[in-house]
């Protein structure tokens, strides 16, 4: 028979399928991955250190740049943490608008994931379809806050602006057309033989391992654990909306795809309910001009599109945080990658990176 030799293969940092600058050192036996070393940090900007020298208002634009695909969530988590730290209550209307924008952001983020994931695996068309709908969402965000990616859309205590006139009607229109569009992705992928072949049984992450690795978000739910911060610790006004937590059974890439697809539908449901219940009134609560939380520390989590997004702030009573820590879901989820690709083929590594839905800005901070 043949004699095989172990081989070290370097994947990345500049590789189209790693969604940024991620470097993997794969130890291959033929085409089978036997060991993986994940090397990150190419995008490390030291945001945590920077935050220690900025006051609480100034940090929000920095949070935008962590997870730039879902910046609304970084904003949301950050302002809510500071509000919790200071005991500020936010007006109802602001909470509802936050929920609407955040859930739209979840859809936009999942669309990026779906498009690029499918592109990695070889389905080109889905990418264009997804970005077509994402464009509508980005236009909505642009009309709401003036930016398409780095929103800086909330302020501590509320929102800087109310929604522009006619905006809610545009959102309603989107809610109406989107299920039909999602049907198109469904037709393209869900029963597609190639898609099934590339995703079924690939990158299995069982529930026990997922919890042990700290994996959260759709990757955890696809393993059958119905853990969602929106239900477990309802923040903002999430306890008022009806929605389901989709879970998978087979713990594989295909189930994660189904879970995310279903999450988009549930997000749409939340948006619809929030639009119907949108109260009138102020959007900015009573906040001191200078944000100076008392001495204390808070760990607050929100459910981002990638998983549990945590913010840990230690305040020493100054107008700057003493310590700021971002618990980014991408960073934690990526840790499970070596476990998921062990024993699979090199081509599956690409699929697994896609299914983890990492954003390197969030991983490296």
């Amino acid at each position, binding site marked *: 028979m043949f004699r095989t030799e172990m081989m070290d293969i370097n994947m990345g940092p500049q590789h189209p399928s790693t969604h940024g600058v991620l470097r993997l050192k794969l130890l291959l036996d033929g085409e089978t991955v036997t060991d993986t070393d994940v090397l990150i940090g190419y995008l490390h900007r030291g945001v945590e250190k920077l935050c220690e020298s*900025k*006051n609480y*208002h*100034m*940090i*929000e*634009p*920095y949070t*935008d740049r962590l997870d730039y695909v879902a910046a609304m969530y970084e904003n949301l988590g950050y302002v809510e943490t500071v509000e919790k730290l200071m005991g500020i209550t936010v007006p109802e209307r602001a909470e509802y608008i936050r929920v609407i924008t955040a859930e739209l952001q979840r859809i936009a983020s999942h669309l990026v994931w779906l498009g690029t994931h499918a592109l990695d695996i070889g389905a080109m068309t889905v990418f264009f379809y997804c970005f*077509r709908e994402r*464009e509508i969402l980005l*236009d909505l965000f*642009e*009309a*709401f*806050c*003036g*930016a398409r990616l*780095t929103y*800086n859309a909330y*302020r501590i205590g509320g929102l*800087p*602006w109310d929604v*522009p006139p006619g905006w809610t009607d545009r959102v309603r229109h989107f809610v109406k057309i989107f299920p039909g569009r999602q049907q198109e992705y469904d037709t393209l992928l869900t029963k597609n033989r190639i898609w099934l072949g590339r995703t079924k049984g690939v990158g299995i992450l069982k529930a026990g391992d997922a919890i042990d690795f700290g994996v959260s978000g759709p990757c955890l739910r696809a393993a059958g654990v119905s853990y969602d911060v929106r239900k477990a610790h309802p923040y903002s006004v999430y306890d008022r909306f009806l929605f389901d937590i989709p879970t998978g059974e087979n713990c594989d890439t295909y189930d994660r795809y189904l879970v995310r697809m279903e999450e988009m539908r549930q997000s749409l449901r939340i948006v619809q309910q929030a639009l119907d219940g949108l109260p009138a009134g102020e959007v900015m609560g009573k906040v001191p001009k200078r944000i100076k939380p008392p001495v204390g520390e808070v760990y607050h989590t929100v459910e981002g599109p990638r998983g549990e997004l945590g913010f840990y702030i230690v305040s020493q009573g100054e107008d700057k945080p003493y310590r700021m820590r971002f618990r980014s879901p991408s960073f934690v989820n990526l840790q499970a990658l070596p476990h998921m690709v062990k024993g699979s083929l090199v081509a599956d590594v690409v699929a697994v990176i896609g299914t983890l839905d990492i954003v390197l800005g969030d991983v490296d901070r």
Partner: protein
Amino acid sequence: MKIQAFLQKVLLLELWQGMWVTLKNQFRPHITVEYPKETVEFPPRFRGVPRLRKDPQTGEELCVSCLLCEAICPTECISIVSEKRPDGKGKQLISFTINYERCCFCGLCVDPCPTKPITAIYMSHDYEFAGFDRDSYVTAREELVDGKPVKIYTS
């Protein structure tokens, strides 16, 4: 059933189905624009680079040199020098520069500006700032008010 499947194969029905989708999409209106020739329309809140403005009615300087925008800017790209007015009331600007190289378009500087409802500093709709040297990004007050001349690199 068999005949149907046979016909489907011979007449390449599935191929024509696909072609039909392509054909339909051929005649849909374009959603892209030919960029340098035409530009997309911006919503009123679009955040381009920050600029200064004067009172649109009286043409007076609006900025009262309160330095609030300088204090809140996360990238420290605004620098303001001001002096006491000769008549003793308030301050007047000597220079006001924004380093566009570092501005991150966050819009925080507009929030605290006290000259409401028309804030002295505002997020304009300008965004075409390609340049060859870094110094050209440090923008002085006159350019902030009148707008930077846009260089057209295409013919």
